[in-house]
């Protein structure tokens, strides 16, 4: 009998960065880097655990935009080209460092070998189908995947138009069903942004549970008697789990967290920036903009600019120590907490998946060590998915969580400040117009139907919380501003053409190929009569 349970939840998400209009688009690299550094390393960890009969349990979100990128043929082809170029660079680096910088040579060889293995995994083993690769672990019962909103819309800012709120959730849940051919048990609220308006819609989609930030749960009413150590049930019957503070800090915190250890790889020293332009030119952006290549030779070393060469073995040893530390702390935490509870506690540990491998290079190794150590070195807790916990402990305290998010300061300031507040006027107007169109033309067919469906796509793409987040972060702001304007301008033109009955067929076909997400979307999801808040 275990004293408690731990649920690791990795939220994998990227906005829909697909630009067929250009051969080489900088922001598509976000996705290519994530495959190389995060998704494939995670899959390799799962594979190795499975091969060694480690009964691991992990929960993930694969958001609808990410699933759509993973399954897109153009993006698949472009990723292979990206990887081939990177392999070429890594081979040249082995030669260059062998001659001129021998202290980096072992690390250069490591990259060459990793990149070639990545190519083998992606192309030969997974046949370029990452969705299938993840689905395999769902089928084996090791991985539970949560559904999420269609384009990672910040749901509390969409509540002004319940039909649009419904569309974000419904299209997201339907995308999950299309890719995984099963019903979702859990639903990841983008940015953990909770507002009670979502409950009824989640219930209508058959969702059993969601996750909120710690204070979202513990500031709930009535006060949850177990804090964030067991779920609560909302008045609509949705189970809500709360993020655990202690374990979050250990992994997440920039200052106290494991990823900042001096033995780990330094993210901010990349040969894309460090090497001579003449040498690196053909491996960075075609416009000569320096970019991260993923080849980085230094360890964090210390707080200053002085950096020493990365030592892979020392970093792996540190990852093992940190995995042991994480396990030990969970044991202590569970022993302490379980004394005051009438059931074993569950520790909910959600993280951005891209932290693992991309920002924290050793993150996947840490995960690998953690599952292995937990299997053999302790008996206090077991890894579990939230669904499994609910099956064991279905009856929980009724409480209403408070409106909250996992963003800086815990509410919505990240997405609502002077850098990004201007977008909501336009997003709300577009939502209002989309509902107007859906109500006005309930039985459209032919090109009008195509135009209405495309208008739905453009609205959803404009609603991604990523654009407001990037505007706030201060880097790549122009891209986020332009994406917001692009989709809203496209939406408005569609709205006007549909209402004036002068639809430009060629343009619709162009948009269908360019913003091609959600191929089976049905604009009627925006009809007022059909959404659950109106029933």
């Amino acid at each position, binding site marked *: 009998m275990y004293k408690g349970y731990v649920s690791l939840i990795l939220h994998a998400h990227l906005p829909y960065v697909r630009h067929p209009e250009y051969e080489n688009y900088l922001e598509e690299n976000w996705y290519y880097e994530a495959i190389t550094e995060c998704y494939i390393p995670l899959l390799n960890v799962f594979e190795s655990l499975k091969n060694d009969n480690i009964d691991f349990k992990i929960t993930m979100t694969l958001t609808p935009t990410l699933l759509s990128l993973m399954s897109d043929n153009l993006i698949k082809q472009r990723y292979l080209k990206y990887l081939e170029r990177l392999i070429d660079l890594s081979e040249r680096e082995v030669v260059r460092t062998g001659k001129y910088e021998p202290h980096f040579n072992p690390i250069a060889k490591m990259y060459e070998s990793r990149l070639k293995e990545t190519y083998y995994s992606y192309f030969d083993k997974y046949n370029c189908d990452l969705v299938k690769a993840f689905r395999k672990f769902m089928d084996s019962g090791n991985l539970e995947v949560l559904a999420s909103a269609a384009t990672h819309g910040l749901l509390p800012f969409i509540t002004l138009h319940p039909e649009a709120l419904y569309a974000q959730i419904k299209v997201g849940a339907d995308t999950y069903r299309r890719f995984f051919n099963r019903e979702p048990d859990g639903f990841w609220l983008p940015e953990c942004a909770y507002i009670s308006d979502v409950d009824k819609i989640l219930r209508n989609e058959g969702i059993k549970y969601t996750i909120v930030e710690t204070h979202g749960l513990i500031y709930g009413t009535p006060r949850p008697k177990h804090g964030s150590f067991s779920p609560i049930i909302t008045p609509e*019957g949705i189970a809500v789990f709360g993020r655990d503070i202690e374990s979050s800090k250990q992994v997440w915190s920039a200052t106290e967290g494991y990823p900042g250890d001096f033995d780990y790889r330094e993210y901010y020293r990349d040969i894309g920036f460090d090497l001579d332009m003449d040498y690196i030119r053909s491996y960075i952006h075609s416009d000569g903009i320096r970019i991260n290549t993923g080849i980085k030779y230094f360890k964090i070393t210390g707080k200053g600019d002085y950096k020493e060469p990365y030592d892979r073995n020392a970093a792996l040893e540190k990852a093992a120590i940190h995995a042991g530390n994480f396990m030990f702390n969970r044991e202590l935490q569970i022993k302490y907490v379980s004394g005051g509870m009438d059931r074993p506690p569950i520790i909910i540990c959600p993280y951005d998946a891209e932290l693992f491998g991309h920002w924290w290079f050793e993150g996947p190794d840490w995960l690998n060590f953690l599952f292995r150590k937990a299997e053999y070195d302790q008996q206090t807790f077991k890894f579990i998915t939230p669904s499994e916990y609910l099956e064991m402990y279905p009856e929980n305290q009724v409480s209403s969580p408070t409106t909250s998010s996992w963003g800086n300061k815990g509410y919505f300031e990240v997405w609502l400040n002077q850098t990004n507040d201007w977008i909501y006027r336009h997003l709300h107007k577009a939502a209002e117009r989309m509902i107007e169109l859906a109500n006005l033309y309930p039985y459209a067919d032919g090109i009008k139907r195509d135009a209405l469906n495309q208008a739905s796509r453009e609205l959803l793409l404009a609603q991604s919380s990523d654009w407001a987040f990037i505007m706030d972060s201060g880097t790549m702001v122009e891209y986020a501003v332009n994406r917001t304007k692009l989709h*809203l301008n496209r939406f408005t033109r569609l709205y006007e053409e549909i209402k004036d009955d002068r639809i430009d067929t060629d343009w619709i076909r162009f948009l269908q190929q360019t913003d091609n997400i959600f191929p089976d979307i049905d604009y009627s999801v925006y009809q007022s009569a059909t959404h659950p808040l109106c029933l």
Partner: protein
Amino acid sequence: MNKYETRDLPHSYGDTKIALLIRDPLWVFAYWEVSDYKKHGFESNFRIEWSETNPALKVVNLTENNFYYINIFDEFTDNWHLEVGSPKTTLFLEFGRILPNNSFVSLCRSNTVTTPANTISEDSHEYFSIVHKKRFDDIIYDRITKELQYGISTPGSRFLK
């Protein structure tokens, strides 16, 4: 992304409306616009030039059952980050004009929002429940009742046509 498709969005949409968003337990954000039609109507109703009046917000606090006004000194201001200063407060705003006699004329009213909690609740009641059983019965019955059309599939119906 081409420049035409990423051109600036319109300043307004010809509506008269005010919308309210929650930022955190202490702050909300409002944006508004007033149509020319509404402005002309206001001018003829009150027999006054628009420019002789001043924009203002009325903050209606439903939790504490009170209200107050905020003068907006800039005619071109169309949004406001407002410190309401109290969590778990239900409120709405009205945008309007202050007449020379200091009375407020409301032109539009916002949605109602409730600011989030930022402390642990004093309510410690314990009720227990389980996850809804939507999947296992509601969904099935939803589907059946949607398909259900009385009479169509009853054996006798074909003879009645």
